[in-house]
């Protein structure tokens, strides 16, 4: 019998299908397009092909936009949103409109032409994770922005484009996005009722039940969520309660780097290098004004969602917001636990 499971935070129902169940190894990603890039604008020495950098780690050459860097952040060449201008909120009949003000930055994670973040060193991933914090903090100084989303699209199937040079993106938005609001609202409702953080409770339950835990290491836990939308969806959560990604100390960042690398390597090895997205879910900027609630630091808990792109999202999912996951998360967790990296 298939099972319907509800996400405890945002209340989304998911069908965990048993009828069409495949074995975990049947999900393995298809043959990759092995064609090498002819030209990569993100490699060392090609700096003039990107907009001028807004951030860089340059141990070997302090000259901006020259070679000698370990990591670079540049504005997107085709930004979703633009940094200049006022929001100018207005109406158009019954519709609401505002200007597309925001920031859109690309984090070039290494000067080497490496495709998958899983293949970076722990030390390099640590730099990337620190850079996220620095950029979020810096963008937060601009009071027009309410939220910064950090995400990664790896591979063509995940919207990552054709250039095989690992990078992530940051987008600062002038409104709190809908998905973020839903999660915050869900977490607050739970807190109002229980006076506990729903994510802390989730972690406790997962560590007792164990069957969905992929990895528990150095203060972090990686799980296949109970109501997973996609096969092999994976969440990484810090065990210690904290609403804000940028509040991590140096040691936690190093630990997260190890955990993230391990999980990404397990996915790469176990599923034949699948395309994937990951997203950092963190609290919005907390400024004293309308729409801000004071309990956010207690009721929200930052985490990372990793979504391998192994199945197609079709009409049913778009229409209902109901997902059909063809594999129970207990099985994917077991499979990933057993992948040796």
């Amino acid at each position: 019998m298939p099972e319907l499971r509800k996400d405890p935070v945002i209340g989304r129902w998911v069908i965990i299908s048993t009828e069409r169940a495949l074995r975990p190894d049947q999900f393995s990603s298809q043959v990759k397009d092995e064609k090498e890039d002819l030209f990569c604008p993100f490699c060392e020495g090609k700096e003039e092909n990107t907009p001028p950098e807004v951030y860089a780690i340059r141990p070997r050459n302090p000259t901006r936009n020259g070679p000698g860097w370990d990591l670079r952040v540049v504005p997107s060449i085709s930004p979703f949103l633009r940094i200049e201008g006022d929001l100018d909120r207005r109406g158009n009949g019954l519709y609401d409109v505002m200007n597309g003000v925001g920031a859109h930055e690309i984090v070039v994670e290494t000067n080497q032409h490496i495709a998958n973040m899983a293949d970076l060193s722990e030390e390099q991933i640590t730099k990337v994770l620190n850079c996220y914090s620095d950029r979020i903090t810096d963008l937060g100084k601009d009071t027009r922005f309410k939220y910064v989303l950090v995400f990664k699209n790896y591979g063509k199937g995940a919207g990552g484009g054709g250039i095989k040079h690992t990078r992530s993106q940051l987008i600062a938005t002038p409104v709190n996005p809908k998905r973020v609001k839903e999660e915050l609202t869900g977490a607050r409702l739970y807190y109002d009722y229980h006076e506990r953080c729903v994510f802390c409770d989730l972690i406790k339950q997962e560590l007792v039940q164990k069957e969905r835990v992929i990895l528990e290491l150095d203060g972090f836990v990686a799980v296949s969520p109970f109501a997973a939308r996609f096969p092999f969806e994976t969440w990484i959560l810090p065990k210690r309660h904290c609403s804000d990604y940028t509040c991590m100390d140096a040691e936690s960042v190093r630990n997260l780097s190890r955990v993230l690398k391990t999980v990404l390597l397990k996915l790469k090895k176990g599923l034949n290098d699948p395309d994937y997205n990951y997203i950092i879910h963190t609290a919005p900027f907390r400024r004293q004004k309308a729409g801000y609630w004071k309990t956010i630091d207690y009721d929200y808990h930052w985490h990372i969602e990793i979504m391998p792109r192994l199945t197609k999202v079709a009409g049913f999912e778009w229409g209902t917001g109901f997902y059909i996951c063809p594999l129970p998360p207990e099985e994917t967790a077991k499979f990933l636990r057993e992948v040796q990296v």
Partner: protein
Amino acid sequence: MAELRRDPVVGRWVIVDTDHPNKPEDFEYEQNIPSGGLCPFCYGNEFMTPPEISCFRDPGTAANTPGWQVRVVANKFPALQIEGKLDRRGLGIYDMSNGIGAHEVLIESPYHNKDIPELLVQEIESYLMMCGVRCADLKKDKRFKYIMIFRNYGAPAGASLEHPHTQLIALPMAPKNALEEIRGARGYYNYRERCIFCDIIRQEITDKVRIVLENKYFISFCPFVSRFPFEIMIMPKKHSGYFCHISGDEVSALAQILKETLTKLKKVFVNLSYNYIIHSAPINGESDVEYYHWHMEIMPKLTQVAGFEWGTGFYLDQTSPELAAQYLKAVKD
């Protein structure tokens, strides 16, 4: 400067790229190329599917044999199962239920290679009528709270079989998106005592710029807040919460506007894959229908949804709906 637009019903923000809009030829989409092979939905292969649940067929022909025009069968690999009692329960902090529901496949015509634009209007009418018949029937089962009709056309849009078909899923709870629409529509209704969808239709007819087609009973338009480029909405002008309450005249008008709309879309984008879904009010006591208005949403598969959209629920539309409507309108029959 790009524009941020907010959906008046569910409150979702969408980024509309007005600076460097994508023209149709700018989209690099996966083409839908049929590969053929044995098809369980073609004449003569009826034995390959579960037995038919409902069918329009020539008089004198037996069930599960050729001679049908529209055929409905249970999905061979159902996401949900029809037998059993609904058993909702908790598991620590989690909620769950057994997977009760219905999952049916509606084979629209015997023709393996005919999408809706290639069918006759009468054939599309029969197909739409059958959708209504199945909805009305499933609605009688009090365990079900929502009936979802959706169609995945082409492998890139998630169709696992080539022969065009539509799916129906009856769910034991109203899904999140439906509840959001209901909540938004109810909020508006409480405030203005008008249906928000009726107001949208009025504004679209006045603004004109986003309308693709219009007939006596329906309009087809690119919504002001489109999540996907070239997204199209078909809405009945007459206020009605349920698709299955559609009248005979409306079925003909819908068949015609659906055929013409998809014809235009497929002329702009060769070998296009797309999804459409019918949004209808929840059933069996979940809502009043005064403020809800059924409609059809067509989503061409032109772009990839990536990390940003998953993370934020924010969408980026590279072609403004005004421009998309202009391209679609310009298509000559």
